[in-house]
């Protein structure tokens, strides 16, 4: 079983190649480069795209354009190879990489994407209810460090790898594989034009 996973929803894109539960390689770069990363990962493993058996993609929430680039690439790849696809929430993958921590992704417009009572939501960072000793990770946690620390949370140093999604965790969480078009983006927000109506 050869699984390729990638997530381009946040400022740092991630990709990983896993064979039967063994991590063969992982890359971080930008959304526009993610397929070049995937090709490098396959090259180091001496494999080619046609040998992939499963594809996993991060579905956001994050940058709308980034989410769509990942989904478009994943759907195109799965379609072209006749594979099934799994979608994993970027928040869940972040949380899996930092057990016990709350994932906080920068959502722009002075908001963050995070889990509220276990459900993904877009909220103002100062409205978060954080338990004592809470740890926050993600680019939103880094950006709103002051706000979150004032609420009693701990935010690891900016360079910590806990702040970026790592695609190996997408693979770990992927259990349900479906038709490529059945994997939906997690926007959590309507387009501006709809909101204004």
């Amino acid at each position: 079983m050869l699984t390729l996973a990638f997530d381009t929803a946040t400022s740092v894109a991630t990709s990983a190649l896993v064979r039967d539960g063994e991590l063969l390689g992982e890359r971080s770069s930008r959304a526009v480069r993610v397929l070049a990363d995937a090709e490098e990962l396959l090259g180091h493993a001496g494999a080619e795209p046609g040998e992939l058996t499963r594809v996993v993609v991060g579905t956001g929430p994050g940058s709308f354009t980034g989410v769509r680039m990942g989904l478009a690439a994943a759907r195109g790849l799965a379609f072209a190879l006749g594979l099934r696809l799994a979608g994993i929430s970027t928040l869940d993958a972040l949380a899996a990489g930092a057990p016990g921590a709350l994932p906080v992704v920068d959502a722009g417009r002075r908001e963050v994407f995070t889990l509220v009572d276990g459900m993904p939501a877009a909220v103002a960072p100062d409205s978060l209810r954080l338990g004592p000793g809470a740890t926050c990770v993600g680019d939103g946690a880094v950006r709103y460090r002051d706000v979150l620390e004032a609420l009693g949370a701990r935010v690891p140093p900016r360079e910590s790898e806990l702040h970026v999604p790592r695609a190996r965790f997408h693979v770990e969480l992927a259990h349900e594989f479906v038709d490529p078009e059945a994997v939906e983006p997690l926007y959590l927000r309507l387009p501006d034009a709809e909101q204004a109506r």
Partner: protein
Amino acid sequence: MHARFGGVVPEVASRRHLELVVPVLREALAEADTELESLDAVAVTQGPGLVGALLVGLSAAKAVAWANRLPLVPVDHLHGHVASLYLQHEPVEPPFLCLLASGGHTLLIDVAEPGAFRVLGTTLDDAAGEAFDKGARLLGLGYPGGAAIDRLAREGDPAAYDFPVARVSGLDFSFSGVKTALLYAVRDLSDDELERRRADLAASYERAIVSALVARTNEAAEQTGAPRTAVVGGVAANSELRAALPDALFAPLPLCTDNAAMIASAARYTEAVPFPGYLELDAYASG
């Protein structure tokens, strides 16, 4: 889909692109009665356009090409419009002068050979199709505005109003002034009067835009000495424009609005990027 918002909303368009990107691939392959395995290359629009929408197509195309290590052909959208002329039973042979008028672009292009195009003039503000859309909104008509104005204009007097179109230097266009002139005309009318004069306003407005397009096109034809003139893009469907340029060649109606056939057509004259050189390719918003 964009009718509800009276225009193209980038975020709405981009979301829709993602929903449709795989279904349209399936449909095109089925309609052509072919399979992915028999493809030699994948062509995709790289720009110019809405970057969020372009990146959906580009990401999917890169993935499809990469899956089979096929070459990728990054096509310029404007070149695509010109190449819609090569899909007719009797393809237009360069050299020719091309007027590209759509919701996003208004350009005069010198086409010396199928793969090359040189822009002679462009709009300094609104595109012609955009001017039609905005005019239609002022007149309380639907979207897309070009078709709505074209239909209503047939019942009106094109000489009823004098909407001046700004003459800018060179071979460029400007349509923001004519839109403002229409706005003032509409603002001065009561609801009843507007109802009565709507067709006259539409006809006069359409006449103003079309005359500007025709005048510039004729000037460009004279300057370049092009043996033929062709018209492409959504505005090429306009009946007044077709009547005003009786000797010009018009793109087939189904290929006037944006379509993927014209992109495949342009790909024949665009250099392909072999695997793996395209894996980091980015989109471009403006030309």
